[in-house]
């Protein structure tokens, strides 16, 4: 009896369920769903090695779907990639509607790839792309990514560098040939002799702080050249020069520079290894240590030459408070105001790099500085000509200087 009742109940439920489904969906419901999910495919699908790169990227491009008319019919495109034309394919990216290219930046140069692009509308996005749709979609490929030797979009940078290099080499050759090259006075560098002389008269130390960056910063390299000149003077006058550093490589380089300078002026015995010493790599630990040394030892002269950051004012203000003559030089724009405010002389930006040529008078450095000046002259003329041409709408001159990263 119970079994009969159960069978009747199942029958009633099955019939009821079927009737309910018939009420919700029209007879051709499957066709309706497929029609809603269907979006016009992309056209002219292409995949090629991305040009002007270091490999590892393929550029996929297409003509947008005819449904992609801006009224929301297409919400975007999904890009699939496979290593065989027959698949399997995996999603490598999605782009919004209206976009007709995609850079797949995650390819291996040794592999061959195939690409498919599916135009997605709301329904397809919800339902998901089926194998049938994948099979029907156009395939682009085979394609392989590869690296190129030259990025031809940056040919203007190459030409500019070549021109500047030529000017510098030309001026160096003139300097080496004995041609007298004029460089205007740089006030901060004129004061170096005076500052070292002051320390000698007072019988006090000279501190040389080469910044907090390593030898991979051009400002630190320029600083080492200036240190050489300061060390020569200190050696000549037999004044104690102390160079506290915060990078091991800077310490090694500074030791070599100071040692060589002392040898050059005939005082190799005056050089002592502990003149150049390491404190800490930590920015503010380094600043705290120098502040302590400055307050306790009260040097007559302090040089700050190189790359400085937030510690610049802490250092320069302490030196200023002790009454030391201070000469600073950096190309860090955000720190220059602090040095200008608290130091006696400041080498601003390029003056730091020019100072080494100014001090040493070496033909190579002088020629290099003159070559750069010629480059600046060309830039000045270009700016004037360019602004006139663009103001009167004659030619978009600035595009010559456009740099594509």
């Amino acid at each position, binding site marked *: 009896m119970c079994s009969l009742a159960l069978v009747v109940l199942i029958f009633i439920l099955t019939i009821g369920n079927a009737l309910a489904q018939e009420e919700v969906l029209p007879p051709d419901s499957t066709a309706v769903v497929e029609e809603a999910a269907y979006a016009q495919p992309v056209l002219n699908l292409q995949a090629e090695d991305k040009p002007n790169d270091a490999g590892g990227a393929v550029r996929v491009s297409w003509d947008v779907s005819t449904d992609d008319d801006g009224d929301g019919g297409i919400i975007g495109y999904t890009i699939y990639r496979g290593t065989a034309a027959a698949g399997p394919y995996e999603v490598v990216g999605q782009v919004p509607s209206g976009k007709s290219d995609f850079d797949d930046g995650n390819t291996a140069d040794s592999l061959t790839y195939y690409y498919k692009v599916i135009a997605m509308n709301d329904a397809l996005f919800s339902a998901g792309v089926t194998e049938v749709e994948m099979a029907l979609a156009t395939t682009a490929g085979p394609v392989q990514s590869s690296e190129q030797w030259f990025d031809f979009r940056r040919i203007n940078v190459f030409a500019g560098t070549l021109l500047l290099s030529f000017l510098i080499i030309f001026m160096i050759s003139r300097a080496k040939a004995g041609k007298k090259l004029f460089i205007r006075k740089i006030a901060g560098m004129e004061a170096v002799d005076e500052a070292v002389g002051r320390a000698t008269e007072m019988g006090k130390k000279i501190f040389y702080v080469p910044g907090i960056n390593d030898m991979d910063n051009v400002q630190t390299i320029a600083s080492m050249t200036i240190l050489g000149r300061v060390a020569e003077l200190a050696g000549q006058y037999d004044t104690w020069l102390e160079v506290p550093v915060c990078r091991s490589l800077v310490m090694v380089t500074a030791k070599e520079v100071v040692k060589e300078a002392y040898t050059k002026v005939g005082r190799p015995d005056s050089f002592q290894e502990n003149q150049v010493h390491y404190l800490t790599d930590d920015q503010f630990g380094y600043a705290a240590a120098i502040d302590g040394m400055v307050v306790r030892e009260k040097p007559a002269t302090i040089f700050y030459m190189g790359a400085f950051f937030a510690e610049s004012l802490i250092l320069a203000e302490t030196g200023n408070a002790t009454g030391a003559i201070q000469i600073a030089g950096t190309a860090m724009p955000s720190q220059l105001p602090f040095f200008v405010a608290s130091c006696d002389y400041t080498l601003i930006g390029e003056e730091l790099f020019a100072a080494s040529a100014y001090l040493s008078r070496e033909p190579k450095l002088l020629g290099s500085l003159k070559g750069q000046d010629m480059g600046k002259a060309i830039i000045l003329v270009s700016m004037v000509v360019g602004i006139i041409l663009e103001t009167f709408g004659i030619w978009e001159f*600035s595009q010559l200087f456009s740099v594509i990263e």
Partner: protein
Amino acid sequence: MEHFGLWVGAFLTLGIYSFLYRDNAWYKLCEAIFIGISAGYWVVILFWDNFYGKFWIGREEEPMLWVGAALGVLMLCRLVPRIGWISRWPLAFIVGATAGLWMMNYFSSNIMAQVQSTIMPLLGEGYSASFGEIVGNFVIAVGTFAGLIYFYFSKEHKGAFGATARLGIWVIMITFGASFGYTVMSRMSLLIGRIDFLLGDWLGLIQ
């Protein structure tokens, strides 16, 4: 333990600030602790990040790392005076590579991009600029031109050239003034952070 850390932090913070009054034993102690700990900390960081993290882990996949390691070993030649000169080779490599690598970057960012930004129609595209925009464009063009003249080293700053260079240094100094004010404001936030620690975390006077 947390309270102990707070008290140590407060003790060291106040010790460093005591330098504002004058150099003293408390500051010297805090300074020595700071320098010692930071030096040790960086040794550990550099060992694990560079030697272990970069070289040791990647040594088999990237043979070029051995070149760097070899250059590092050459640096140690300084410890033996007789062959100390060999340590100059890695230094020369670093300085040369730095100059070469940065040359293109600096040329792109410091020259090309800046010149491109400076060259513009002073009256706007199709003479459409407002009065304010025109003034702004003139300031950029004249300021850049005069600033460049200041950094021209091959000619004495005399006459019209000198006057332009003086205008250039004025522009630079005005820029520095603005930068000074901006940076001071950001430094105030550091001070506020420390005061917040002392009055909030340590003393609990502010929530």
